[in-house]
């Protein structure tokens, strides 16, 4: 097949597969930069995907589905926040707990409400996000090189995909160019200093957690309303953890998150496309190796063999006012 055509198709599926990763990793960015570690991204995404699937089916409205997803995800975030900010419990333990509670309850509730083996009923076109065709996409399709790039790669994605890519600069702007962002970053590095300045550490961290909930909710909604047509059991399939890996791989920086997620998305797309394909020189690459590659890369990075990933200094430590 035409190499250029292959490239366009690979790039297109890379974009599709990295969308939920970008949203979830940005979600993690907001809490982790505020000093709250969050390994519950997976659970929140799953809960959001489930809520979106249920509500979009019942109301036949994709926006109600999106809203429900964000609500559920924010609610779960607040549970995490309550446990780790107010109760000063272990953030890791709380994240693990949320992942389990959601993994179990989405199946139980889905089965009880819809009786379809843990999935929600398939959504009609009204209950899903369609694709956006950018202006002139059809007209320029036949222009060499630029035509396919524009109409094949840039056009024809779900609105949430555009939102995800837009959120990268927006998150950067919020974190690095607003007062809220400065304080949020400060609270993740040195909450004592923020407290001394008379700013509430607790409220700031809660806001970070809520931002995380909103973005995670959108990521979940993308899975069940845009990538799929309804919720299926365990549909996040580790994407929350890949997003977490991407966040670390990106050294907690918005721009790097974009590239890390695109890389992991590309690995996924590549693995799907070239399953069992014999490459020149290396021969067949086991599909399992491709699946494990994001995790292996993250471990190598964490070990400091490719630069050094330094987490927010106060991450994982509950803030206790001096007594």
């Amino acid at each position: 097949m035409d190499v250029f055509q292959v490239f366009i198709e690979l790039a297109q599926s890379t974009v599709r597969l990295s969308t939920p990763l970008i949203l979830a990793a940005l979600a993690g960015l907001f809490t982790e930069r505020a000093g709250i570690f969050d390994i519950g991204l997976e659970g929140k995404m799953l809960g959001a995907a489930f809520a979106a699937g249920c509500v979009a089916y019942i109301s036949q409205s994709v926006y109600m589905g999106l809203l429900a997803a964000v609500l559920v995800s924010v609610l779960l975030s607040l549970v995490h926040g309550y446990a780790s900010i107010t109760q000063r419990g272990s953030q890791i333990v709380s994240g693990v707990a949320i992942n389990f509670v959601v993994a179990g309850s989405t199946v139980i509730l889905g089965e009880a409400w819809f009786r379809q083996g843990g999935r929600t009923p398939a959504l009609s076109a009204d209950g899903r996000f369609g694709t956006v065709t950018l202006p002139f996409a059809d007209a320029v399709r036949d222009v060499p090189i630029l035509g396919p790039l524009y109409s094949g790669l840039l056009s024809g994605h779900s609105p949430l995909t555009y939102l995800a890519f837009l959120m990268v600069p927006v998150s950067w702007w919020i974190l690095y160019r607003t007062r809220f962002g400065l304080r949020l970053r400060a609270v993740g590095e040195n909450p004592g200093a923020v407290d001394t300045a008379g700013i509430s550490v607790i409220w700031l961290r809660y806001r970070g957690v809520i931002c995380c909930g909103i973005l995670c909710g959108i990521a979940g909604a993308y899975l069940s309303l845009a990538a799929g047509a309804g919720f299926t059991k365990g549909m996040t399939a580790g994407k929350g953890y890949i997003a977490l890996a991407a966040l670390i791989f990106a050294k907690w920086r918005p721009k790097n998150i974009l590239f890390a997620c695109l890389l992991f998305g590309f690995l996924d797309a590549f693995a799907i496309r070239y399953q069992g394909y014999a490459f020149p020189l290396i021969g067949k690459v086991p599909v399992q190796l491709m699946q494990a590659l994001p995790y292996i890369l993250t471990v190598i990075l964490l070990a400091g063999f490719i630069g050094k990933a330094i987490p927010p200094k106060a991450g994982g430590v509950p803030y206790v006012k001096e007594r």
Partner: protein
Amino acid sequence: MSVPYAKLPGWAEYGLIPLVNLAVAFLISGLVVLIVGESPLEAAYHMVNGAFGRGEYIGFTLYYTTTFIFTGLAVAVAFHCGLFNIGGEGQAYIGGIGVVLACLAFDRTLPWYLVFPIAIVGAAFFGALWAMIPGWLQAKRGSHIVITTIMFNFIAASLMNYLLNRVFKPMGSMSLETRTFDTGGQLPKLDWLMSIFGLSVGSAPFNISFVLALLAAFGVWVLIWRTRLGYEMRTMGHSPAAARYAGIKEAKIIVIAMMISGGLAGMMALNPIMGEQFRMQLDFVQGAGFVGIAVALMGRSHPAGIIPAALLFGMLYQGGAEISFEMPSISRDMIVIIQGLVILFAGALEHMFRPAITRVILGLSPKTRDAAVTKGA
């Protein structure tokens, strides 16, 4: 680090508070059952009956208990050293390699009582190896153990998938599993133990590895509270700065603690592989590594607490399977919810009810109140 709470008498600290946390977790699980439209009391009845109603049920309950003792101990040992080992799942999975190698090599030539020790060493070795890498990375390169162990769970899953596909699967077989072991690779059941109590174990795979689990629990107690290594681990867990000041070799202790933890997790593989299936199947761990987190948190990382906590989860697993026969709308995923809630209330929210309980208890007895004032303030 100052503890912001007054000291409570032992029975409240180790008995009442865990029980209250557990009760809340079960109450909320009951709410989920209500939402689904079933009766929580009936569900509880089916659960207890399904776990203890017959000799065979008890056998299954104890079979699951065995698994959870191993994974619970694994998490607890790391906890004592201040490390959170989420990788029990992957370490148990990789531990399976050791069991399978021992069984495939010797099951036709040696009796089980010679294969078993080899398999124990193999399981512990591979589990320890899989935990050693994150431990080493934490100790020497400062990479966060929680993240690396999560990553290693996924890497283990991919690796085992590959090995089962390309190495362990017999030629021409379609299903992802090893061949079935001969008698040398099959552990004897503990039916004699059950028959002492007049119970029949039936088809339940309650086997000799239960004894090994109890021995491991005793071993962990000795290690943590009766040896120099255990003391150094606890010191590290309490205060890394104090440990450094005392001349304890931080990196060495972290790696050793992780290897012991991984070895215990790896030994879990003996139970399903040699005790039940007599072969290794894809994903035989089935989340037991994660249950270990809940078990360790509930058991307060003490073997004396871990064994009852493992029994509780064994009951949930076995009873939960029975519930799903009786009440179709409650599948075994209910256990995952309960597990999550136990982790939440016994782990992350463990102090939620403490102020109230402290107030009640200290209000009741003036003697403890005076003691608390002098100690807590």
